[in-house]
C-alpha cells in the first residue's frame, strides 16, 4: 500500500467490525463473498475459522473479530468474506459487513494515534478521516502473518 501514498487518491474497500469502520486498498481485494460452508482445520489458532472451497482453490479463512480480540458473533446475512491476495497466498477475512468502495485523498490519511479502539496498533497503518467517517487503514501483512505450527504436542 505504501507505493500508493504518492498518488492523490486511493480506492479502498470499507468494511465494518462492531461499530468501527476499516479500510483496505481495493488493489489487493480479489472478491467479496457471502458466507460459504467452512471446513474447520484442527489445531490452528482460534481466529483461523478453517478453509473454504473458493472456486476450486482451498482458501483459509480468518475471523477478523477474533484476530483483533473482539467479541465474536454468529454469522448472519450481512456477514461477508473478503478475499484478499497477498504476495504469497490468498486469505479470506470474515467481517460484519462490507459497506462501500471509496476514493479517499491520500493526504487524509494520518499516522495512527497511540491508541485506536481496542485493536493492537501493529495492525494499523494509519487513520483516514473522510467526512464524518473515521476509517482505520489496516496493515494486512501484519494481520495475516503466516500461521506456523502452533501445537506440536505429538502423540
Amino acid at each position, binding site marked *: 500500500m505504501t507505493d500508493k501514498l504518492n498518488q492523490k487518491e486511493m480506492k479502498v474497500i470499507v468494511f465494518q467490525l462492531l461499530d468501527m469502520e476499516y479500510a483496505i486498498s481495493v488493489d489487493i481485494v480479489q472478491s467479496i463473498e457471502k458466507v460459504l460452508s467452512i471446513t474447520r482445520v484442527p489445531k490452528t489458532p482460534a481466529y*483461523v475459522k478453517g478453509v473454504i*472451497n473458493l472456486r476450486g482453490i482451498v482458501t483459509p479463512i480468518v475471523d477478523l473479530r477474533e484476530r483483533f480480540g473482539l467479541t465474536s458473533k454468529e454469522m448472519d446475512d450481512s456477514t461477508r468474506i473478503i478475499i484478499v491476495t497477498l504476495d504469497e497466498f490468498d486469505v479470506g477475512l470474515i467481517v460484519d459487513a462490507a459497506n462501500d468502495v471509496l476514493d479517499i485523498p491520500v493526504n487524509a490519511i494520518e499516522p495512527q494515534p497511540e491508541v485506536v479502539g481496542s485493536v493492537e496498533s501493529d495492525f494499523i497503518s494509519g487513520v483516514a478521516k473522510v467526512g464524518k467517517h473515521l476509517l482505520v487503514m489496516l496493515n494486512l501483512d501484519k494481520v495475516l502473518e503466516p500461521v506456523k505450527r502452533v501445537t506440536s504436542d505429538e*502423540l
Partner: protein
Amino acid sequence: MDTSQYLEMFIDESKEHLQACNEHLLELEKNPLNLAIVNEVFRSAHTLKGMSATMGYEDIADLTHMMENVLDAIRNSKIRVTTEILDVVLQAVDYLEEMVMDIASGGTGKKDVTKLVESLNRIEVGGAVVAETAAAVVLEDEVSHEDSLSYDGYEMTVISQSFEQGFSAFEINVKLRDDCLLKAARVYMVFEILEKSGEIIKSEPKVERLENEDFNETFTVALITKEDADVLKAKVLKVSEIESVTVIPVKTDYLMRDADEEPAKETESIAPTSIDAETKKGKRNSGVQSGNKTIRVNIDRLDVLMNLFEELIIDRGRLQSIASEIHNPELNETVERITRVSGDLQSIILNMRMIPVETVFNRFPKMVRQLARDLNKKVELEIIGAETELDRTVIDEIGDPLVHLIRNALDHGIESPAERVAKGKPEEGTVTLRAYHSGNHVFIELEDDGAGVNRERVLAKAIKSGIVTKEAAESLTDRQVAELILASGFSTAEKISDVSGRGVGLDVVKNTIESLGGFMSIESKEGQGSLFQVQLPLTLSIISVMLVELKKEVFAIPLSSIIETAIIQTSEIMNAHNQQVIDFRGNIIPLLNLTEIFEIPERNSESDDYLSVVIVRKGERLAGLVVDSFIGQQEIVLKSLGDYLQSVFAISGATILGNGQVALIVDCNALIK
C-alpha cells in the same frame, strides 16, 4: 532488438547445453583420448556462445569463447586432457550455470569472470607455447593485414581441419589491369584455375558481385590447396589482363598455431576420427528430429491444464453422487462414460507431466567427482534407469534428499583407498544409483560397497543420544540397528565434516520422503556396504483415499497408508501405559481416537459397543485410528492448504469433495511415531 520473447527459450536451451557440456566433460575425463567427445562439448559451447551473444549476455559469450579456445586446443591435440584442465573447464561451466540461473531469476547474467578467463587463457597459451617459438616465417608480402580476409567460425573450422589433413590455405589477391574489358570472364578464369588446384572457401567481394562485375580491379580469394604459393601465383598469372597476383598464407594468430605446431603424423591419425564422428552425429541428429516430433510447452501451462482437469474430477464426483441419487439409467450411462473418458484423460495428463529422473540424476556425476576429490577417495558412480519417469512435483522435491544420501554414502559409506585395499576390496569404491518402476510406485535405490553400518558403533551412539535403551539395544535385529541411523538426532560421523553429518542427519531425508508419501528403508551388511531404498508414489496430485466421518466432519485417509478397516468391540480395547491398544492379528497396536486428536467438538457422546477402526501403517509400524463411520473410497485431487497455514499438525492437505465441501487429508505419518 527486443529479445525478451526468446529469453525463456534461451534459458532452457542454455541449461540443456550446459548439462551436455557437464556430461561430456566427465566422460572425457574417463576417455581423455576420445576427441569425438571434445567435439560434442565444443559444439555445445559454440551454440551457447552464439545464443548468448545474440541475447546480449557478453560475459557468457566471453567465457564460452575462452572455453571454446581451450577445447579447440584439446581437439587439435595441442593440449593433453588433464584433471587440472578439466577442473578449470568444469568450473567455467559452473560459472556459466550460475550466470544462466541469474538471468533466469531476472538478473543481468553478469559475473566477474576475469580470473577464470585468465586461467583458461593460461591453459590455452600453455599448450601453445611451442607454437610461438617455432613460428615459421612465411612469405610476408606487400599485402598488409588489413587486407586479409576475416573468417567466420565455420570457415575457421574448415581451415583448421584442412591443416590437420596436410593442406595449406592461402589468400590470393588478384589485381586486374585498368583496361580490362571482360572482368567477369577473367574472374571466371581465375576461379577455374584455382578450383583445379584446390578448394575456394571464400572470396571478397562475394562471387555474385564478381560475376556482375560489381567490384574494382582487385579481389581476394581464400583457397585450400596442397600446392605451393609460387606455383599458384604462376598459374593465375597465365590468365591475361591481370596486373599482379599476391599469394599469402592464411594467418590469423589462431590459425597459425594450428598450422605450425602440429606434428603432421599425429594430426593425420586424429583428423579422420573427428570428422567421422561429426558426420555420424549429424546423421543421428537429423534422424532424431524426423522420428520424434516434439513441442516445448511451458510447464505452467501444463499446471493450468492439470488444475482445470482437477476441477473436472471434482465435478465428476458431484455428478456421480447426483446420479446415484436420481437412479436415471440414461444419466447413469452418461456419467459412466464421462468417468471412463476422464480416466483416460487423467492418465494422459499425468503422463505429460512425467519427466525422466535423469533431470535430477544428471547433476550427480559431477558432484560425486568433486566430493570424491575433496575426500581423497576414489569413487565410481553408476547410474541405472535414468530414463524412469516420475511426476514433476516429485522430481522437484526428490533432488535434495538424494544429494544428502549420496553425500552420506561417500562420506560415511565408502572407505579411503588405503582402507579398502587393506580390506581386500578394489581401491575404487562403487556407488550405484538405480531407479525403476514397480506397480504404482517408483523405487530409487542407492547402493554402495563401502563399510556398511557398524552395529557396535551405531548402538553405542544410539544409546548415548538416548534413542534406544541399553536393554532394548540387545534385542534389536541388524536391520533395526541399521534403521536407527535414520532416527532423528543421529549422526554417525565421529567428526562433523563439511560433506555430511552437520547434525541434520538422515532423518531429514526420511521426513522429506515421507512427506512426499513415500517410504525409505535401509539394508546394510557390515563391511560389504549399504542399500538405501526410497519408494515414491508415481504422482502426488491425484490420490486414492478412504473418506471417513468424525461427527459431522469428513476426513480423507490416503489408501497408501491403510492396511485394512475393522470393526472392533469396545471390550477388546486394552490399556497399556495410558495408551489404548488392541490386539490386531497377534500384534499389539496403539489405538488413536481421531475425534480427540482433531479436537472435534462433541455433539453426542453416546458410547457404542462397536468402533470403526482404520488400521494404518508407517513403515512397519501400525496404528488403529478410531473413526465414527466409513464413507467409502474415492479418487481425490490433492490440494495444499496454502502458505498461510503452514504445517498444520497431522494434516497433509485438503481436497474438494463432490458436494463442493473441503475435506482435510490425514497425515498418518505424523500420527505414528
